[in-house]
């Protein structure tokens, strides 16, 4: 989507002498920065949720006046959670890797923009 929006910008950078590699680098870095921000936000929210899941479910139960897991049915009547930092690290690494891989195709497409063709119709 960004590549489609930025067609004219990419084209004008190419007329100024920017190489395909430079253009590809811009999109990989931009995409990866977005991935880092998303991963940090996601990890922070996930950790907070894990640490407070019992309190959050209790608050919801109180709010809707309903017991989600009544002790008459379940052996454990509250949601248990355990924060494992190794899991957090694995998930963060996987998220960063996926966000990096996801930048490659758009960046490759950005590098293929033909300035003459784009600027003619802009």
């Amino acid at each position, binding site marked *: 989507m960004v590549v489609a929006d930025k067609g004219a910008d990419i084209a004008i950078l190419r007329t*100024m002498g920017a190489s395909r590699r430079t253009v590809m680098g811009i999109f990989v870095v931009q995409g990866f920065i977005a991935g880092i921000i998303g991963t940090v936000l996601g990890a922070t929210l996930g950790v907070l949720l894990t640490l407070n899941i019992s309190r959050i479910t209790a608050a919801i139960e109180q709010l809707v006046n309903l017991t989600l897991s009544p002790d008459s049915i379940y052996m454990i009547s509250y949601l248990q959670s355990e924060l494992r930092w190794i899991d957090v690290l694995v998930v963060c690494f996987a998220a960063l890797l996926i966000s990096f891989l996801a930048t490659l195709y758009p960046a490759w497409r950005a590098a293929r923009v033909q300035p003459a063709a784009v600027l003619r119709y802009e």
Partner: protein
Amino acid sequence: MNEESTDTSVTPQAPVLECRHLSKVYEEGPRKVQVLVDVNLQVVPGEQVAIVGSSGSGKTTLLNLLGGLDLPTAGQVIIAGRDMAGLDEKARGEFRNRYLGFVYQFHHLLGEFTALENVCMPLLIGGMAVRAASDKATVMLQRVGLAERLEHKPSELSGGERQRVAIARALVTDPRCVLLDEPTGNLDRHTALEIRRLMLQLNDSLSTSFIVVTHDESLAASMNRKLSLEDGKLVDG
């Protein structure tokens, strides 16, 4: 067509840009469209050349070939003694950065950046340090009368000011030749006149050659030389 190139050979200066027997054929399915036929042109330092022609006559195609943005079907484009077709894409980019500037009908400024940053861009692409690029871009923006607009983004500038920034961006690398595609085509009459004056003034003070593709007859008439593209051929206009 060939005659006009011999006209310029009376000057002892070596051409900054030259094309020899340039042809361009586009293939649209089984159909072949010959846009340019054996075009010859020499542009000497500081020369202003206007190229006029009806819509679809191949003016922009010629400008793209001269700027190394497209490759000819036959013939050569020679800039600073090098045939552009003999260079790979990366080298053509470096050549454009060093020897050419571009100005389009639409300014094509980068919207997220200030006027100063936009003018810095070709210098930074060429490998200049940020501080030096900023100083040079500031001087160029002052030359085009935008000393008070350095930190303004394109959306905060008028149409004429944006085109001035685009001209500053094209000239900041001290190119040998600037290729302008309808530079006044999107401006009102008064602003177009201002831009024309600015172009002539910059051409006079710098030794940069200008090749202008235009429909604007008054702009074309103010150039040193006027050529016309007719049936794919470049003739004295």
